[in-house]
């Protein structure tokens, strides 16, 4: 039920690999702490890989919005990678799909930060 997060560096971009559920409680808190930790280290080019995120609730959606606005406020950029159909559909009905910069190819996504 819980979420796992790991990070890696690709050509100056921090790829955050998420798996599991981003939901109220632990999942949302983990994501927030991860993003805040990256910003504290000055890593402001963030690619959030949601390819293994199979569930997200309203709290998780709110956390994605918070991550996006927090990174932007610090003159960074946060993009989403590899949305599952469920997450894609949720972002569509909440009209957030066009707000986020959504990518489906990691190499192209990393390049787009340059």
């Amino acid at each position, binding site marked *: *039920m819980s979420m796992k997060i790991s990070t890696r560096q690709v050509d100056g971009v921090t790829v955050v690999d998420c798996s599991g559920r981003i*939901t*109220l*409680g632990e999942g949302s808190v983990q994501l927030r702490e991860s993003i805040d930790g990256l910003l504290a280290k000055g890593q402001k080019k963030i690619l959030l890989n949601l390819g293994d995120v199979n*569930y997200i*609730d*309203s*709290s998780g*959606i*709110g*956390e994605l*919005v*918070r991550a*996006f*606005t927090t990174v932007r406020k610090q003159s960074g950029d946060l993009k989403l990678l590899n949305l599952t159909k*469920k997450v894609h559909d*949720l972002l569509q*009905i*909440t*009209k*957030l799909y066009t*707000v986020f910069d959504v990518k489906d190819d990691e190499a192209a996504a990393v390049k787009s930060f340059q």
Partner: protein
Amino acid sequence: MTAQRLSYTFDSTLETVDTAEQAASKIATEAGFDEDVVMQIGMAVREAAINAVLHGNAYDPGKKVTLDFERTGQDLVITIRDQGHGLDVSKIPDPLAPENLMKTSGRGIFLIRSFMDEVEINPSQTGTEVKLIKHVHGPTAGAKEASP
């Protein structure tokens, strides 16, 4: 699908949110809904449970959340009640309005309405009752198609 009722009473904790979602998903699966609809029903119940635990009962250990399921031939009816002060639906902003789009909260009721066929929200001074209805389609509803 024969008529069947199930009732649960939960504490006002985060665990209740997960438990309510799991119970709803199990019952929706047993009712014959497909995987996508099961996910939608589970999420609607999860969001209603979040509202009940966080906003209704405000984690008060003395207040309970009740969850009722009723399966009939036509519908799956799910009722979630809290013991809070009553949700003022008129004060819930439209999460799709441009000025609200980047807010980090306020999408729960919208998602519930998106995923269920009918939603009734009945607030009172002793709590809020949220009734969620999903129509049953297909052979599990007991309906038979006429042979050609």
